[in-house]
């Protein structure tokens, strides 16, 4: 081997070892620097895409959109009234609980976000949303849709964040089965992203008696997800010698996700 090639190889290996020994906070800093460097390109790319889509929509569906807009405006006004009433009731409820010295019930605020990109990486089940640190979004916050739990926030930038979906193996959720004492850990399955990706509910008791269609909810334990959020329904149960495992059909249709909600504060 030529001396120059040998020196280059040694430098390369030294650099690789340096990279491999970085700790999580340092890796996060590197990722933040990388994304801030390419952020102008991402922003202009997204803006271009949005403009192109808006133009096409305008050309093809301007009348339909006008009708839809009026409908949405009407619905929004109605929801604003309901929200106002809900906030008043929540405040009143909180005051009453306080007066009765009850433990504070779970309360949370949400930020609506739009999914801008799906599966930006090869192996991980992630999506990118158009809200980030500027909207007070932080890492590990739960992400919901109107159907149930979608996943949790992974990497946060100023104006966008990545969300690791419930269908990914790495997104683990402490879960309970409705109408039974069974609790376990729910997660996605490796390489199962065709059709409706089924979830695995592991570490159930050996003699777990569950039936198809029973609903699965978050327990609220573990400090990541608020309690009683719908995760899915039991599809089948596989009994093992030490514990049982159930196959769960997710409540959320991950193929049709448009708008999601990031839970900003969650008190157990």
């Amino acid at each position: 081997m030529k001396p120059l090639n040998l020196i280059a190889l040694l430098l390369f290996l030294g650099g690789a070892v340096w990279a491999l020994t970085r700790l999580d906070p340092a890796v996060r800093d590197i990722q933040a620097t990388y994304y801030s460097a390419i952020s102008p390109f991402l922003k202009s790319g997204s803006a271009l895409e949005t403009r192109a889509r808006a133009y096409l929509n305008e050309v093809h569906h301007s009348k339909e959109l006008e009708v839809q807009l009026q409908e949405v405006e009407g619905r929004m006004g109605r929801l604003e009234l309901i929200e106002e009433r809900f906030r008043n009731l929540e405040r009143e409820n909180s005051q009453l609980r306080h007066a009765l010295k009850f433990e504070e019930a779970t309360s949370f605020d949400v930020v609506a976000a739009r999914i801008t990109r799906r599966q930006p990486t090869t192996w991980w089940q992630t999506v990118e949303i158009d809200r980030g640190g500027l909207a007070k979004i932080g890492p590990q916050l739960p992400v919901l849709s109107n159907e149930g739990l979608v996943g949790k926030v992974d990497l946060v930038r100023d104006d966008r964040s990545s969300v690791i979906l419930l269908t990914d193996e790495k997104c683990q959720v402490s879960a309970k089965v409705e109408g039974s004492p069974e609790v376990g850990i729910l997660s996605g399955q490796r390489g199962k992203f065709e059709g409706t990706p089924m979830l695995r509910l592991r570490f159930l008791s050996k003699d777990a008696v569950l039936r198809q269609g029973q609903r699965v909810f978050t327990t609220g334990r573990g400090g990541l997800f608020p309690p009683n959020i719908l995760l899915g329904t039991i599809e089948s149960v596989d009994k093992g010698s030490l514990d049982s495992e159930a196959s769960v059909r997710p409540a959320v249709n991950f193929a049709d996700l448009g708008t999601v909600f990031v839970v900003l504060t969650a008190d157990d």
Partner: protein
Amino acid sequence: MIRYTLITLFLVLAAFVLQQFLPAFTGLHNARILLVQLVFLCAAVTVGTPTMLLLAYVCGFLWDAQCGLGPAGGDPEIYSQPVESLRFGYSVLLFGGMGYLMQGIQPLFREGKWQFSALLTGIAVFLYLSAEYALITFVRGEFILTRATVLQVLITSLLTMLFSPLVFWLLFTISNLCQHTIRFDGIKRKKRYH
């Protein structure tokens, strides 16, 4: 030579930006065109070992910065068996390995037979993805290999390979503009015949 090296480095960086806008083909088992790997593999066969290693390092480092997942989080008493992620920096070694593989057939490329390099691009991407999946399996345990995963790897390799002639054409154009020769023997042979 330096100009060509700098332009290849710039091409790799541009590939990172473009990769952000290349979605996965959900109808084709979530396959995608791996533009960064493609540009690196095509460039690796046209440069010397030190430059190839520099490109491999830049690609691996930035790829992990782009694709790495954060820590699992949560109470360790509840989530007692967290799912491990691949360590930051593993791609540096994978890119280095792929680069050496491409350099193995550099003599053929220099004779002007770029078609073999184009074919090897597909094989290298297949090996890269297989190695990545094997590492995930090793770190997380449980050997799970579904038909969907195999098809995803195969189609991704094939799609990426299909675009390699375009990248080679771009590299040949750049080398001509930089007056840098990347196909010595092929040129010599042509001169001998005429």
